[in-house]
Every structure is written in C-alpha cells, then in structure tokens.
C-alpha cells in the first residue's frame, strides 16, 4: 500500500490497456485521477462501469483514452445524453459491451469469490444476450424440466479506481453505504483510491466505521485529493456541480466544443498542478 502525493501519481500507476472498474456517478468517482489519465495521454483503456458511468466515461472516451466500454448505461443523468459517448458509438471508435446492471455486478461478485462464472436470471430473449458471446446459456442442472439460465463469466479487473470520503494512514478506506466499492476492491487485482481526507486514527479501531471500511489488504494505493470527485458529487461530502455539468453538455455538443472544454479544464488543471 502506497500513499501517493496526488491524483497524478495514481494515474501514473495505471498503464495503457488496463481494464479499469469504475463506480456509478453517484457512488464516488475518481474524477481528479480521470483528468490526470487524460493529461497523461493514457490509451486503450477497457472501462467496466459498475454498473453505469457518466461524466468519467464520457471524458475518457472524448479524449480518446478508451477502446472498450462495458456498461449498463452511460448517461449524464439530469444533464441528458453523454455527447462524446454517443458520437463514439455512431462512429464505432469504441467497442461496446452493453449489459444490464445486475449482470456486471454479479460478474464482479464472481471475481470477488474467485469463481469462474455465476448464473443470473433474466437476459434470455434480449439483444443484450445476443451481442454478448461471452455470456453462455445452459440448462439449469437443478431444474426439473427445461430451464435455460444465463452464466456470466467472472470479471477480475486489472484496476478498481474510485473516490471515497476517508482513509487512514494504513490505507484502510471508509466507504459507508456505497458497498459496491468494497466489491470492486475485492474483485480487482489492484485498487487505487483518492480520498477526501486521510486521518491519523486507525479506522479499524473505530467500532462504528470499521464495518464499512475496506481493509488495506485490498488497497494498492491512496492519495488525499480534496474534492477528488468534482464535478461529480461524493456521498457524505458534497453534491454534484450541476451548473458545471450543464455547461459541459452544452459545450461538448460538438467535437470543437469538447476540445475547448478540455483545453480550459483538463490541461489547465494539470498545468496548475505542475507549478
């Protein structure tokens, strides 16, 4: 477990081509690291939204960092469609792996349990299944008559990446009720977390926080990054910056507008960070 000085150093630990599991927009998204990945020109990322994504996938796709997008949905929520995602789909510049929320979560849970697959009800007769040759259908061996059921292959991401409210100096990370972050950390080979605050007290000695704390056993690195999820919101900490995202969606309606947004937000921030 390494305590990194900033979001940029965490981004540097994530290589080109990594399969990265990321949480939904409201669960705690490592946006500062996302901007750093873009600044550093990361390429061919395979994003696994657990189970959906928004501004994070949108920006990474717009900046050309993504080759595969696996998700049950990419949306800017209240702000509407994700413009770069939609453009990338239409021009086939990313490979899509559309799925449904519980399938992605179940597959991550299979990864967490070290089992090669997990069954799930539903999906039969959908085009989601039709376009996912990696999902298999078998006859339920416990069924009394024909009972087809989908088997999902386990997902073991190279990296889980998210933002959380709190960590201690040992690298234990408190996630509160956003329990899916625990699943991500268990399933992934490496887990990097930006936190709003690193505290001196041991989260394990805190009877109330310990049950919602990811043990450092699963954590490869943390960095204290204030407002690490901005402009998205962070549970327990701050709300989404709606005006910023509204402005983004307006600007990114054209590729030129997206380039302008990036020029004035991502590069500049990095320049500031380098000063």
């Amino acid at each position, binding site marked *: 477990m390494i305590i990194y000085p900033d979001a940029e150093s965490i981004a540097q630990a994530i290589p080109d081509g990594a399969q990265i599991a990321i949480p*939904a927009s*409201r*669960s705690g998204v490592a946006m500062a690291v996302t901007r750093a990945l873009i600044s550093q020109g990361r390429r061919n990322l395979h994003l696994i939204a*657990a*189970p*959906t994504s928004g501004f994070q996938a949108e920006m990474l796709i717009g900046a050309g960092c993504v080759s595969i997008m696996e*998700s*049950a*949905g*990419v*949306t800017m*929520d*209240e702000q509407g*469609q*994700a413009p770069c*995602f*939609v453009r990338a*789909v*239409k*021009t*086939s510049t990313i490979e*899509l792996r*559309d*799925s*449904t*929320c*519980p*399938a992605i*979560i*179940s597959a991550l*849970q299979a990864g967490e349990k070290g089992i090669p697959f997990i069954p*799930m*009800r*539903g*999906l*039969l*007769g*959908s*085009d*989601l*299944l*039709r*376009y996912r040759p990696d999902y298999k259908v078998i006859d339920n061996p416990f069924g009394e*008559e*024909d*009972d*087809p*059921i989908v088997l999902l292959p386990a997902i073991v991401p190279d990296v889980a990446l998210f933002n959380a409210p709190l960590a201690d100096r040992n690298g234990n990370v408190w996630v509160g*009720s*956003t*329990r*899916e*972050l*625990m*699943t991500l950390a268990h399933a992934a080979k490496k887990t990097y977390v930006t936190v709003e605050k690193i505290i001196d007290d041991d989260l394990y000695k805190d009877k109330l926080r310990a049950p919602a704390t990811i043990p450092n056993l699963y954590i490869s690195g943390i960095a204290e990054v204030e407002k690490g999820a901005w402009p998205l919101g962070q549970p327990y900490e701050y709300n989404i910056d709606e005006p910023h995202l509204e402005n983004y969606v307006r600007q990114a309606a054209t590729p030129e507008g997206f380039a302008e947004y990036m020029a004035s937000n991502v590069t500049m921030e990095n320049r500031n960070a380098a000063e």
Partner: protein
Amino acid sequence: MPQSNETHYDFSQEELLICVISRLLKGIEHVACGVSSPIPGSAALLQRKLSGGSTRVTILLSENLQFLNDGVTELFDCAAQGRIGAFFLSGGQIDGKGNINLVGVGDYPQHKARWSGSFGSGFLYFVVPRVILFREEHTRRTMVETVDFISAPGLSEPGVYRPGGPYALVTSLGHFSFDKKRGGFCLETIHPDHSLEEIQDNTGFDFTIADGLKETPVPEPELLELLRGQIAEEVADPYPKFAKVVWGV
C-alpha cells in the same frame, strides 16, 4: 394536448398520470422506483398514503426513502428474492409485444441514435411481477411496431423463468393493460381530451380495445387535495424540482 397551465380541467397532466399509476399499484406491498422518475415516484407515495402505509415505497438514491445499504447489488437481489412487487421501466421504443429498447435506433452497435443503455431492465423486467411501462411521449416514434434493439423482451418462451413482466403501459394519451396470454397491449382508458382515433394514429403497433373502454377517470377532488398537500411535501424530498414545478412547494 392541453398544457397544465391552459387546461380547462382543474388538474394537471402530471396529476392525472400520478392518479392513473397510483391505481395500478393497489395491493402491492413494496414498490421501488428510480430517482429520476418523479411521476411514478409520486404515484407510489400517493398509493402508500391511500393504503394506510401498507404499501412500502423505495425511491432509489433518495436519502429518506430507500432501504439500500448493501451497495447497488441490493435492489437487484431484493427483486430476485421477490421482495419488490412493482417497478417502472420506460423505453426509447416500446413495441406491441411489450419489448422495450433503451439502447438506440437503427442497427447495433452503430446506431442512428444512441441512448444511455439498458440499465437494470434486462433483469428487472423478468423478475418484478408488476412492471409498469411509463412513457409520456406517445407517438409513432416511441410506440413502434418492432423495437430496433430488445433491451428486455415483453414475452418469454415457455420454460423461461419469468415471474415478472409488463403489467401496464401508461402514456400521455391513455392507459393500456398487457395481456400476457395474447402477448399484447389492450387499451383500457383514454385520457380526457384525447380520442381513440388519436391513439390509433400515434401508435405504431396493433392493440386490442377493452370491452369496457372508457375515459380515464379524472382525479377526485379529495385525491387532488391530498396530492397537493401531504403528498406534494413528501414528493419534494426525493424530487424537489418536480414538486416545485408542479405544485410550487
């Protein structure tokens, strides 16, 4: 289509739809809905009140109206356990067999129009007994003969485990039930100020017409009073913008 501010009825379209949906939730022990579904959410809160509290309402991601603390898996596990009696789904396209499309128009994956994605539909449509399809826009663009992409099918082959599925379709023009045996929608009521012809003109799929086809009942004054008072206050918690626009609270 009368706008709420120019209607000659003393209720808005939102209030009408809330009452229509609320009636469809009768007898349900637990209804869940998304945080961006204010009309179904309001309907659920109204039904909770009318049931004397025996209907439980979970509004996802709402601070005070959700039960989740086991991460995003819990909603789906809970539905799989049979603990969710009703849920709402929508579709960029909905077809006459109850298939819904949340993915895009045209051929997959290079769509002519791409939407957000299928979210939980590919699972919840199979396991929640009473799925209410809700889409305000009722045009040949949304109500199509055959969807371009099946996020979740309305019907399943015999043998497929399917305790759930479509129960009704509510739009700005009317309310359909879903006939699982026949595998299609049946027009039950037409909202005030709309006609069968208008619905037929704006629907891309065939549907049957209920024997007792009638006008959608308008909300009773007591119901409106309840809605605009206590329910509006409750709705303002998960859906502040909606409550402000519709009821000014």
